């Protein structure tokens, strides 16, 4: 019989999913406002965007965006998948695949965001 315990409490993942959902929405709003209304409006160019992305503050914001988006998306997929997957080996396979995918996304994304120069 399954041993029910606090140890790997469901509350953390549940709370993080809500928190990242909320923050993603807020960040998206900031992104939209800055990118499409204050920065260039209709005349958005590579130079304008690159100048913004190259600043340290935006690197932090974009990295946060990337980390939270990856977590929220992959955790959401796992939450839905876990509703239907019964077999233990399949659970392990799916979780490993999602973790690998997350690793790839984060590595590629951070490699793009952090060393970016104008």
């Amino acid at each position: 019989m399954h041993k029910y315990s606090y140890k790997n409490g469901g509350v953390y993942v549940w709370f993080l999913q809500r928190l990242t959902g909320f923050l993603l929405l807020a960040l998206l709003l900031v992104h939209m406002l800055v990118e499409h209304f204050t920065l260039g409006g209709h005349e958005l160019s590579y130079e304008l965007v690159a100048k913004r992305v190259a600043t340290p503050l935006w690197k932090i914001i974009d990295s946060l965006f990337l980390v939270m988006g990856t977590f929220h998306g992959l955790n959401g997929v796992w939450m839905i998948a876990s509703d239907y997957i019964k077999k233990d080996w399949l659970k392990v396979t799916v979780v490993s695949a999602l973790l690998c995918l997350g690793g790839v996304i984060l590595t590629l994304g951070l490699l793009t965001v952090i060393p970016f120069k104008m």
Partner: protein
Amino acid sequence: MKAILRIKRFDPEKDRKAYNQDYEIDVQEGTTILDGLIQVRGELDGTLAFRRSCRSAICGSCSMMINRMAGLACYTQIQELRSKVITLEPLRGYQVIRDLVVDMEPFFAKLKAVMPYMVHKTPTSDREVPQSQEEHRLLSEAITCILCGSCSASCPRYWHDENYLGPAAILKAYRFVVDSRDEAEEERLAIVNDPSGVFRCRKIFNCVEACPKKINPTEAITALSRKILSNKF
């Protein structure tokens, strides 16, 4: 009036697969599904297996899927269903033992997991532990649960995750957590905070719809989630 009971039959000693069998029964005003089943077993087919005990919606033995909805056979009147053919199946999410009889053991094991008993740690005198009417009101709904298992049988999460505590067990945990006399809130919240506990609930309210006692287990699940959240953050 006549009605047809389409019953899902399965005898593990004889059948390789479950099959449906139709029985035509006499229906009068007030005839319940259980009356129909007793009629079938008494007059048409003595091999039909089902559980029943009190016949007045208090023991919870005769819960089954009635027209695909979990409910009590003794509490459901045939005429109210407004269908000529009524399908009767064993509770979903439970192992079938025979015909409409399912193995309730995992259900009760999960109930035991949430410590379904009063824990009073501080020494008391040999007088009773009093409770005000307001304090009692918090648990007055939850204590009417008869453990029929209809809520869990209507929960997709319960069908798919064999570890998921299910609405009935979580409701039982809630019943003790809100009880002013109980002193094991922390332990119980720890148990329902398991990944297969309250945060597994998808809030689709199937359990609320299924409960023959009109209890709201989803509300209890939400209340416990809130309690865990406010304790943690």
